[in-house]
């Protein structure tokens, strides 16, 4: 196998890691208004991802940097082409990240509500736009002969891409809600399970349509079975959740996202950025990649470092394996003026 094909899959691996891991962070953020009945609930939810969201987000930085190092042309075309969409993602990630850290610094409910809102928006926007971006990559966009994107932000918001965005949004939402049921206890855990059933059913329908559309339009030999496997895992996760098997439900959701993203990469192969207007302008694995020397250097680094990274990240999840309860939340230093009615459960039973 050529090194650039290997790196196509390594970049895919980093994006899969990012979506599986930060995916449930987004889901937890989006679920705040659905499951957080009071400030303690919301603190419990945020603390389920407290120790890990930063390292999960780092997968994006590594995915982006690997893209830059292994496929400079792909990185350049994608990032300059999807300029405004990426700007929105960046602003959302900034808002979300500082909110996790800042919300607990003051006890006033107005202060916390403000940052809770930023967490929700900061989770919804990337969850939606990453799907839009990847659907557009697979579908192909207009490129000129210098491989520069010639469309606008609104060209990216086509029906197929929006369906892709809705798919990632729902996948991440359900993923996060299942994660909450796995990591909390008591009433919150039960409500999370119920919500995961409802959102899971909706996710199955939307994801099935999107994966079918993807494969009918751009299907490859490898993308079909992967898409079918993703659908099977998603349905299995739904039933595992229905039977209260939280560990299985979460693992199967993680598997669903991993295999679904892999099927998108398989559908893309051997292109990396197909041009919808003229095939000659397409970026492929061959014409977008770095030199074999650079790729071999990067391969050695990845081989040497990744086992350690995976080991210490797994260790971190092991250290924080315990469920988080309302009782484990220490009192705020000042009395709260929160009332339970401040939260508005929309779907949560």
């Amino acid at each position, binding site marked *: 196998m050529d090194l650039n094909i290997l790196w196509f899959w390594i970049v895919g691996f980093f994006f899969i890691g990012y979506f599986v891991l930060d995916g449930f962070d987004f889901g937890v953020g989006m679920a705040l208004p659905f499951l957080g009945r009071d400030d303690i609930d919301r603190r419990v939810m945020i603390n389920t991802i407290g*120790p890990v969201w930063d390292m999960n987000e780092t997968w994006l930085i590594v995915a982006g940097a690997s893209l830059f190092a292994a496929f400079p042309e792909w990185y350049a075309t994608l990032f300059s082409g999807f300029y405004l969409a990426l700007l929105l993602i960046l602003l959302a990630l900034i808002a979300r990240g500082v909110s996790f850290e800042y919300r607990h610094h003051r006890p006033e409910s107005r202060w916390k509500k403000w940052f809770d809102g930023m967490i929700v928006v900061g989770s919804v926007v990337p969850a939606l736009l990453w799907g839009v971006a990847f659907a557009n990559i697979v579908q192909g966009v207009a490129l000129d002969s210098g491989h520069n994107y010639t469309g606008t932000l609104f060209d990216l918001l086509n029906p197929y891409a929006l369906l892709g965005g809705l798919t990632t949004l729902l996948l991440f939402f359900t993923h996060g809600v299942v994660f909450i049921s796995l990591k909390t206890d008591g009433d919150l855990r039960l409500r999370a399970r119920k919500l995961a059933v409802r959102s899971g059913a909706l996710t199955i329908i939307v994801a099935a349509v999107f994966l079918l559309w993807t494969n009918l339009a751009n299907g490859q030999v490898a993308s079909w079975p992967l898409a079918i496997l993703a659908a099977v895992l998603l349905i299995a996760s739904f039933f595992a959740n229905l039977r209260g098997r939280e560990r299985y439900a979460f693992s199967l959701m993680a598997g669903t996202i991993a295999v679904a993203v892999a099927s998108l990469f398989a559908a893309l192969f051997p292109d990396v950025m197909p041009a919808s207007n003229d095939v000659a302008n397409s970026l492929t694995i061959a014409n977008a990649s770095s030199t074999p020397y650079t790729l071999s250097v990067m391969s050695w680094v990845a081989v040497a470092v990744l086992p350690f990274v995976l080991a210490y990240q797994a260790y971190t999840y092991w250290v924080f394996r315990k469920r988080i309860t309302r009782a*484990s939340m*220490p009192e705020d230093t000042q009395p709260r003026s929160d009332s339970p009615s401040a939260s508005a459960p929309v779907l949560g039973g």
Partner: protein
Amino acid sequence: MNDILSPLVLSQWQFGLTTIYHFLFIPITIGMATTTAVFQTAWYRTAKVKYLQLTQFFGKIFLINFAMGVVTGIVQEFQFGMNWSTYSRFVGDVFGAPLAMEGLLAFFLEATFIGLWIFGWDKLPKGVHLATIWVTAAGTILSAYFILAANAFMQNPVGFRINEARGRAELTDIWAVLTNKVSLASFPHTITASFMVSAALVICIAAWHLARQQNLDTMRPAIIFAMWTMIGAGILTVLTGDQLGLVMVQTQPMKMAAAEAAYNTVSGSDASFSIFTLGTPDGVNELFSIRIPYLLSFLSTHTLTGTVEGINDLQAQYRTLYGPGNYAPVVWATYWSFRWMIGLGMLSVLLSAVGLWLMRKGRLPKNAWVWRIAVWAFPLPLAAMIVGWIFTEMGRQPWIVFSLLKTSDGVSPNLTGLDVLISIVAFTLIYGILAVVEFRLLKRAAQKGPEGAPLSDASEAPTATVTVY
């Protein structure tokens, strides 16, 4: 007007603004991670409560900063592709590798172990927990190494060849890139300067409490430690800066000429260093200046008889080498930023020396002005670093990669002025708001002082403030 709204000019402003903003948090993160680790080590070894209090107190200050460094850092990585796609296509084969290594080797470490540290107080054995803050600190320093190696390629490209057919630079020697003589000099310079910044922050906070005669048992050792750090790091910063200057003369003589606004080649006693100039520093209308003979020669070559090439001669050389064009940076900016960097850094060290003398043998100054100066001197080393970077990067112009690619040729061709205007306004707004929030939180946390000591036993799990969000 058309010029001001060009994607190029706006992208330059955006990169400059977002990078400076991001960098406000970097030296504090690097320095405070290590400072916190030092305090925690002191607690680990002595079991004295005051060191636990210091660890938690400055750890909290560190974390408020860390969040901002993380989120503004993603913007930096994305911007190369977003605004500088032609640059990215040109250098990606070389420049991407250190960035990817930074992510794999350093960012993963930092981001994982900071989580273990924040939330691991009551879950990890004491020794393991101490190790997590040291690993975090090592991660911050390691990331500085890789990003400075990437930056050094822009200052002094090495380890590559030009592929004319592909129109790009291609990596031929990763070791040369990672041991670029510019990065070997700029890395220790940046790290020691970062320790000056964190020392100034500790001094500022401790002085505020000492002025009010409160928390003496913790704030006194903290300020003494920080003032010694400032002096030690300050001396090292001068020495490493001297090395960096020598390398700069070899690799980018135009930058050194611009730093001194030296238009004509000079040598020996004529190669004087002007500490202060009144008039325009363009060499024509000099009204008054304080000059030290030989110093420029010494700084540039470490000899008294060295020759320092002037802007005009270099300009002529570069025209023959690279074709018509202006190869000089904005001279007034490089001239003054170079001086402010040195002046502000020296002043910080001087103030710490005075402070140590005033606090000798257990003395606590009564004069309110002493404390006021100690508090308000906080921005000096940070400002010195910022102007130092402005000098480094503006002194590189008009090149984006020295001698290979001009900044004006690196910008994304498909961006409109409106695109970049939207993003620059958006970044300015959100960064502006966050700056206010961040500053208030820092001030609040700093003025609150260390939490009360655990009542029973020094080795008890500490208060919950840092354990959960």
